[in-house]
């Protein structure tokens, strides 16, 4: 196990794609200190920014301490192992991740778990915008794995989602699951406007209040809904089909008790 502690507060963005369990495996402290990073436009080494300690324990592989909200791309393309971050972390954490686990005991920045294929990310704080969403002009959304967030999330979460599960215990911003084709998003509390816009498949489950786009149509009322193999959420839920402007058959489950404004849809059943 390697523990990295920030030596000073960081004011300039740091790009640290080298912090992955694969990269740290079988390296001595002297070798780890030489790993390259960039602080703004300057080339620095891991030893310049972090105090590095090694201990014989196996898991987790890496522990990061301090306010790292300016540190980007931690755990990029990692395949195995575990990273624990005690503090806030910056953007692009765990992007293109293909296995392993990242635990954030703080808030995470935007694009966390972007283009993720497998593995798990746990955020015990708030999440930023564009969680599990691809980059601009791209439709390579999250394909598999699990992201759980204890707090709230920003806008455009789970865009172009192609598989995997996103569980949000707080509330979500607008354009949740934009253009999603498969996979599941579960929000325990409220959701801002335009959830599931342009979706063609998959499932969005909202426990709180939400607004339905005019391009969705009501399908049925269901007593409960399955999020994953171990979780069933008890409703009742209105089930909406859409987005019909994209000829989609995605499903939005809206809690009947929390959404009295959607009662008028019952006349179409």
């Amino acid at each position, binding site marked *: 196990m390697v523990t990295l502690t920030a030596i000073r507060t960081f*004011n*300039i*963005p740091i*790009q640290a794609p080298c912090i992955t369990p694969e990269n740290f495996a079988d390296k001595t402290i002297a070798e780890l200190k030489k790993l390259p990073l*960039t*602080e*703004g*436009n*300057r080339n620095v080494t891991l030893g310049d920014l972090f105090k590095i300690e090694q201990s014989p324990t196996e898991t987790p592989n890496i522990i990061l301490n301090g306010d790292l909200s*300016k540190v980007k791309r931690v755990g990029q393309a990692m395949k195995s192992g575990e990273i624990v971050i005690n503090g806030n972390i910056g*953007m692009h954490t765990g992007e293109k991740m293909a296995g392993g686990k990242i635990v954030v005991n703080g808030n995470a920045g*935007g*694009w966390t778990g972007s283009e993720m294929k497998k593995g798990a990310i746990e955020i015990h704080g708030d999440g930023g*915008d*564009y969680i599990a969403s691809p*980059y*601009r*002009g791209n439709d390579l959304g999250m394909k598999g794995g699990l992201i759980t967030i204890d707090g709230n999330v920003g806008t455009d979460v789970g865009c172009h989602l192609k598989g995997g599960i996103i569980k949000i215990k707080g509330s979500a911003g*607008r*354009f949740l699951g*934009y253009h999603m084709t498969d996979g599941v998003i579960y929000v325990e509390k409220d959701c801002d*406007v*335009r959830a599931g*816009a*342009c979706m063609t498949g998959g499932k969005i489950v909202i426990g709180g209040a939400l607004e339905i*786009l*005019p*391009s*969705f*149509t*009501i399908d049925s009322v269901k007593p409960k809904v399955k999020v994953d193999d171990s979780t069933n959420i008890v409703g009742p839920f209105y089930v909406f089909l859409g*987005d*019909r*402007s994209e*000829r989609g058959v995605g499903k939005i489950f809206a809690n009947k008790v929390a959404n009295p404004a959607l009662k008028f*849809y019952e006349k*179409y059943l």
Partner: protein
Amino acid sequence: MSKTINNVVCPICGCLCDDLEVTIENNEIVKMKNGCAVCEAKMVHGYKSEERILKPMIRKDGKLVSVSIDEAVKKAAQILTDAKYPLLFGWSSTVGEAQRIGVELAEELGATLDNCCSVCHGPSVMATQEIGIPAATLGQIRHRADLIVYWACNPWASHPRHVERYTAFTDGRFEGSEWKNYLQKLKADSGRKKIEMASKRIARVEPPIKPQVCFTGPPPPMLEHKPGRKMIVVDVRKTMTAEVADYFLQIEPNRDYDVIEALRCLVTDQELDVDKVGGIPVDTLRDVADAMMNCEFGVIYFGLGMTQSLGRFRNIEIAIALARDLNRKTKFIISPMRGHFNVTGANTVFAWQTGYPFALDFSQGYPQFNPGENTAVDLLKRGDNDATLIISADPAAHFPSVIMQNMLKHPLITINPDMNAISRLGDVVFPTQWCGIEYSGTAYRMDAVPITLKKVVEAPPGILTDEELLIRILEEVRAIKIKRGEPVGQTEAKFTHPNTTKTPPVNTAQKKPKRATKKKVA
């Protein structure tokens, strides 16, 4: 002695009108023909402002002190090379040649490079990257468009000659002007108002107070049966453009996405479960969708009401998707109403040089593009950068105060012709020439057609153009880097733009031969 220059290009808005007639006396513009009021304000009065900066300045002990250009360039280069994460912002009101040097400077510094489109039509560019765009030049629209939709924009105020030159009030080859119809409508309206006023005076009845948001009722039958060009305006309030239009659709604020989504469903022959969308009854939307489907060549122009309201680039994405759906039934074009005269050029030049149109980060040595991460407002809000260079823009007048506070924590370099709000706050203040008035260069019209701006008067002595100034700073930055033993890039041979005011020499030898006339057969 006065002289007149014809076909001068107006350096104000994205229309780049190229038919101005400018009269010059004693190296000053005294009169102008064909231009709009905004153009006249800048070209006849604005550029001669008393606030013109004539010497470079550096802030010493809290006060701006005039210095030589060499000293200011050295100071600026020192600030930029010392910074770990500088931001170069602005670019939309300067010429393409200067923007090209700007990209080179950003690459040399490892800086973040952003242009004004990140606070205006950046979302349109992002939406285009997501879904593509069916586009046409303004000439196509002038000659062929028979349905013009202005969505969330007010060209009557922001692009005053757009309607007159390119859309409803222009005589195209296949479509006529609606100017006479509008005048008749205006006369009828004023007559009706006079009668109403007179009858009120007789009856002595207090006029009822009209609610601020009012729905204008179902579309008039003329929308369907009216011959010639039709113009629809969609906005949250009744603007001047809306008064000119054949039909005005007043929607609730921030509901553009929902209304377009509903229109898409109607265009693809689907029923809606709701009665009203964004405050508009679905039956009315159906009539609008019919008008869109029944036209021969339609065009949607959208403005900042769509790009900077709730949803931002998703609004544009869905509007482009509507144009795509309509193209299955008829011919439909969609186009942004770009603001500054060369903001399209900033996107085009950046994209041509780096592959990306704005929000660039060169800190890794290669360009990284990510709006939301590298855009000026987001970057300054997080307080990431440690030096700023602003060129041909005034963020101090337009950016939120938190962002300006973060910007002013670090050194600030400004390049502007006159003493605007940002120049007053700068640590190094450079003067520059007015492009399009004092020097020539290339600008891109809102439909990405490049047009050469003309030089009409001489600049005050000693003031450099944006391009020359940036080259000086770039050379100084390279000199500092060489001293430090860091690798530097190389500039290509400098391209000098021909002075367009000079008339080209007439080559008599290459005159076209006269057409041979056929001899009549007896």
